[in-house]
């Protein structure tokens, strides 16, 4: 009767051997190729370092002006610009400027990588149903698998540092942009595509003249979500050696510093809200042509 009360498991020894085998072969793999892979990511590391140093070492008023200008370019809304500058002044006043700059650097670089990788995958998915059904489950895995689980192989392969942190952030943050690029392209009006075809557009002309511009609002919503998700990974990234606002949060957890944790947490929230509002109002302006009514 034990068959029903006890789940029939694999034999203990065999299971141990299986796990050992996987670990062993991955360890061999990382010993063999770890350095090569590290070299591949080296330029990325250099870029990230350079950008971070740039943000940290530029005098803060200059950075503040640039951030304010970007907020203006994105939103064309003075209230938002004022709010942004106030938030950053407050952050600086509470001695979180440097960590905030590091976080901004990693989030910006991660977003750029996600855009560069995510949009082409989204385009491929929209082009072909088979590719779509192959990639969708991968995206599901990337979004639901606990971050710690994929941190293990990444750390085994690349050790602790900024690059593995960046990879972890990107794995988590890239799915929305892939999904929404795919969705945006698939939602483009069939009649308009037909017209593009009727005038003899090639695949590229169709993609760049019609599909991408019309999918842009959706793609932009994807970028927005990607930024938010990258920000939410800041603390986990800090665990594997990425500097930024996550580091003091970790320290606060292990030492029960309530105020420190709250302040840094709220700084992350403030940055998230600013990014979100600015990018959303930019996204809305992208759709201006959809507005009806006569006259300009």
């Amino acid at each position: 009767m034990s068959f029903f009360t006890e789940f029939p498991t694999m034999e203990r020894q065999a299971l141990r051997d299986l796990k050992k085998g996987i670990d062993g072969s991955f360890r061999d793999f990382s010993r063999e190729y770890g350095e090569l892979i590290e070299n591949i990511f080296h330029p990325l590391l250099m870029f990230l370092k350079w950008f971070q140093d740039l943000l940290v070492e530029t005098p803060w008023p200059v950075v503040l002006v640039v951030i304010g200008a970007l907020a203006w370019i994105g939103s064309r809304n003075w209230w938002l610009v004022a709010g942004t500058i106030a938030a950053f002044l407050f952050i600086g006043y509470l001695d979180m400027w440097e960590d905030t700059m590091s976080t901004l650097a990693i989030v910006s670089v991660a977003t750029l990588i996600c855009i560069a990788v995510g949009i082409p995958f989204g385009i491929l998915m929209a082009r072909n149903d088979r590719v779509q059904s192959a990639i969708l489950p991968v995206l599901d895995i990337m979004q639901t698998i606990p971050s710690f689980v994929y941190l293990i192989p990444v750390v085994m392969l690349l050790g602790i540092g900024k690059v593995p942190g960046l990879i972890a952030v990107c794995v988590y943050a890239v799915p929305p942009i892939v999904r929404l690029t795919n969705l945006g392209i698939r939602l483009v009006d069939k009649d308009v595509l037909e017209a593009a075809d009727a005038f003899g557009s090639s695949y590229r002309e169709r993609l760049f003249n019609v599909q991408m511009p019309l999918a842009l609002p959706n793609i932009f919503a994807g970028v927005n979500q990607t930024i938010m998700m990258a920000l939410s990974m800041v603390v986990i990234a800090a665990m594997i050696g990425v500097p930024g606002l996550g580091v003091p949060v970790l320290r606060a957890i292990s030492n029960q510093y309530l105020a420190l944790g709250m302040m840094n947490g709220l700084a992350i929230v403030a940055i998230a809200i600013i990014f979100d509002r600015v990018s959303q109002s930019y996204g809305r302006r992208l759709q201006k042509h959809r507005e009806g009514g006569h006259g300009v």
Partner: protein
Amino acid sequence: MSDSKVSIKNLFKIFGGNPKKMVAHVENGMGKQELLEKHRHVLGLNDVNIEIKERHVQVIMGLSGSGKSTLIRHVNRLIEPTEGEILVDGENVLGMADEQLRDFRRFKASMVFQKFALLPHRSVVDNVMYGLNIQKVAKDQARDRAQRWIDAVGLSGFESHYPAQLSGGMQQRVGLARALATDAEILLMDEAFSALDPLIRTDMQNVLLELQDELHKTIIFITHDLDEALRIGDSIVILRDGAVVQQGTPQEIILKPVDDYVSDFIQEINRARVLLVDSVSTSTPKELSCQVESSAKIEEALQILNNAKATEAAVSMNGAITGSVTLEAMIEAVAKPEPSKKEKAYR
């Protein structure tokens, strides 16, 4: 080789999961309704054969859902047929490789869409330039050409507006300008004037007729409006449930409708404005004081007879008298035929 510019041969189109298999049913006489009920396939086109002469305006008519849009989309292969052939200048459109087909669409056939299908993110001028961009025409030259057609369709001043800022009729004219700008020899016009008000519609018909006088394109023109069809069409095809019920010149269709469907179709038109004296004249020449041209419309001839208070007139062709015509015969031809008794049996 015939003198056809476009010839459509034995064209079948069936929508559904396994269209090839359904062709046999249709060939054995199964109708649209039955095919839908028994086999869940929609009969789009049923053995269509049309020869369209170079420089002619071919009008396609039929009730909603009769397959007009489906048919016109086959000419530039936006839809692949289930069976049949389409030849343009003797070349098989269905046999074209991708690159060839693109060139065909770029340079040879352009299209105006029933639902406009403008690029919503581009301004009017950029929409009109679209075909030219694809043809790789230099920017400023393309702009000039686009401007010319924007002026021709009466949209000067709206160049930088977006489609969403225009009325339906204006959008349709943008679509028309876009198609005309590419200078293609074949124009496919799917209800190109249906969203226009009567005045602009007449304007656009004039634009098209002038264009036709000058450039002699081959035009396939879908319309619901019989008066429009008669005004611009050299010949007319009438479709019903995907099949051609009658084709011929406007005169032929009005004088000899093949069935109730067609006669109901031509119910409402002003026959005097379409029928020619020729169609009612006898071939016995008579010397009479009152004379009418054989190529005159009956409407004009009635006017002449009425002015002369005559009941009969001599019919002349190129100055020579070839026959005669009576008032009675003309009135009879112009009188509306009885509406069909079989209560819309074709529906």
